[in-house]
């Protein structure tokens, strides 16, 4: 079999339809409730995850796939195609890309090009789609690398609690209010979480988010991603659709791994600048 394939991980929130149509392989990260381990989106749907999160008195933890998980997938694909572009969640946030590199090295004589997307969720899915729609592995790598610095996610969290407990709070620490709960607005660009603002109401946060997005126009692709906040997501989509008639604004749901770190109610816009 000729051609190349695209591999990513479950933090990409790739729509199922793309996987089928474009042959994108998704390697799941793991979510652990205590000693119970689930493969993201395989053993546990996003809906089941948030249901469990609500009922659990302990926060789940997450872990990257093992190099062996990747090696298994690459080994299988080595019989189906001539090479792989493997694109993953930012190395600043997860060891997934590193595990992929180690896994790739164990499959001899089969070219696997691992790319740290410096991003996650639908941005990562967009990169996968761009890669899958490319004419060759080389073109795919070039087109993906060109887009990596143009991605940004602006996110509004209902609380910083999850990010703090998950140990990914970074510079957003400075936004934390110890008594009064504040809603932080964060930006993820070039792999890192950067604090943008903190406000007390969602309405203000959403307005601030859209204002900030306007500074980055024009955009190539744009989606609204949410964790259990479909109404707000639809509200943002409608506002963006009115503001940007030329861009198709998709709405998607954040998966369990990212959900563990941002918590229910999180909502964001993810985009690739033109």
């Amino acid at each position: 079999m000729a051609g190349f394939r695209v591999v990513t991980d479950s933090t990409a929130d790739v729509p199922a339809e793309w996987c089928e149509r474009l042959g994108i392989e998704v390697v799941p990260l793991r979510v652990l409730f205590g000693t119970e381990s689930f493969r993201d989106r395989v053993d546990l749907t996003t809906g089941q995850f948030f249901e469990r999160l609500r009922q659990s008195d302990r926060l789940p933890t997450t872990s990257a796939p093992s190099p062996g998980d990747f090696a298994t997938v690459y080994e299988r694909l080595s019989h189906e195609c001539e090479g792989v572009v493997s694109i993953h969640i930012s190395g600043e946030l997860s060891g997934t890309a590193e595990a992929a590199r180690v896994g790739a090295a164990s499959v001899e004589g089969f070219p696997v090009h691992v790319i740290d997307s410096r991003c996650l969720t639908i941005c990562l899915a967009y990169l996968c789609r761009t890669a899958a729609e490319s004419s060759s592995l080389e073109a795919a790598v070039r087109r993906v690398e060109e887009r990596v610095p143009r991605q940004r996610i602006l996110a509004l969290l209902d609380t910083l609690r999850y990010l703090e407990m998950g140990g990914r709070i970074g510079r957003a620490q400075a936004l934390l209010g110890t008594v009064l709960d504040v809603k932080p607005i964060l930006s993820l660009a070039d792999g890192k979480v950067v604090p943008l603002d903190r406000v007390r109401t969602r309405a203000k946060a959403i307005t601030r988010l859209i204002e900030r997005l306007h500074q980055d126009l024009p955009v190539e692709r744009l989606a609204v991603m949410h964790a259990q906040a479909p109404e707000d997501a639809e509200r943002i989509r409608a506002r963006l659709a009115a503001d940007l008639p030329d861009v198709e604004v998709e709405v998607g749901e954040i998966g369990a791994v990212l959900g563990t770190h941002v918590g229910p109610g999180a909502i964001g816009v993810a985009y690739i600048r033109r």
Partner: protein
Amino acid sequence: MLGSLAWLGAHQEEINRLNVFPVPDGDTGTNMLLTLQSAVEDIRESPATEVSKIARIAAHGSLMGARGNSGVILSQIFRGFASAVQDKAELNPVELAQAFEEAANAAYRAVSKPTEGTILTVARQAGRSAAGAAQQPGANSVSVMKAAASGARSAVERTPSQLKILRDAGVVDAGGYGLQIMLEGMLRSVEEVEDELSKRGPARPAAQATLDLPEEGWGYCTEFLIEGEDLDVDGIRDEIESLGNSVLVVGDAELVKVHVHTDDPSRVITLAARYGRLDRLNVGDMSSQHRRIRDEGDAAEAPEPAEPAELRSNGVGLVAVVAGPGLVEIFRGLGVDEIVEGGQTMNPSTQDMLLAVERLPYDHVLLLPNNKNVVLAASQVGDLTGKSLEVLPTHTMPQGIAAVVAFHPERSLEENAAAMREAAEHVQTIEVTHAVRATRSNGLNVHKGDVIALINDRLEHSGTEYDAVVGAALSGIGAADYELVTIYRGQQATDSQAERLSDSIRGNFPDLEVEVQSGGQEHYPFILSVE
């Protein structure tokens, strides 16, 4: 000066009662007294005898001690007086009158929107009357001062005709009356000197007799609050008076503020502790003014602050004026570096705020007064510090909190100031308290003890129940268009009252999110922020 101080001290509570708002912030008399006291203390420490030097010290001392709007204006009166008497060792009657006039001018210049019918009008009339008297044949300093005092008196009597709020409340202007009392006190002590001179030649300074100062000096400036029930203000004052001087004991049955200069602070404290719980204890050795000994929790942030683990990269520090343990914790939790305790009835002095600004390890500082009566004193700090300072004109605690929430530790002073100002403007404040006396104001007929609600500092609603008054206030500001109501529960309100209030708000405004926080503030059972 000492005569003024003693006379003002004697009338301070009367002045406090003149406050037009039925909210418990009637402390104009206290503010003026403490401001004047600060000036007098500095003069006592100086050996100067020339008018120009004494006036300059008074101007500086009163500025450092300025509390509340009336205190700040008073400090500007001293400043104007001082600039008029530069280089003069003594004053003739004409020069004295000119100094009074310049004092009034300086006060007008200090206020961005001068209002007639206030201390400003009274200061100007005092100056004009003094100038008239100075032109009379045989004028002397006593006749000039007499004219100033009587000019002040008639100006005070006219203040209700100039200001509607005074007329409605049936009072004269408190600050203006305070100035009148000061001038009268000054006149009394000068007349006593004249008296003594005529009786038995060379005399010791009259004020000494008036104030009865001990030979050995002032000892320790001891200040604290007593919280309790059925406190006997007069009884406490009598007991404290036997232990020191410059005694100031004010308050009501639940809360009494004590200020005394004593050589034995521990005896004063032991005595006071019998009446109730002591709070905000502050003992200062008056020979080394800035040294402070504070009780309990505050010890950790005493003069040498523990070096913060990591300094903010933008080099901007935050100082906020806050009262109430819960609110203090909220402000600290949001990143405020220094808290100056104070607010409604306890306006901090310019110096208190200056020291907090100076203590910060940052060269850029944002200062949040969080009370409209503190804004003016806070704005004086800029002239006194070498740091670059932005004073955000926050009038209420919710405005202060909204501003601090908008603070960003990676942005410059200017960017932060702009964002914080905007955030403060977008929050609505409802302050709920009980009327301390009956009044007619803003079309409302308020009885003593009524529940009243102030929306953004304006008395707008009154009634007998918290729920109903707050409901009316929320409807008044169109709360349905907002998203979040935060209730800061004060010391006087119980958890179940707070719960009932939040349930009632949820019932009336099902789309609003309602959050209850423990503010612990005095005087306001509830402060609500609507955003």
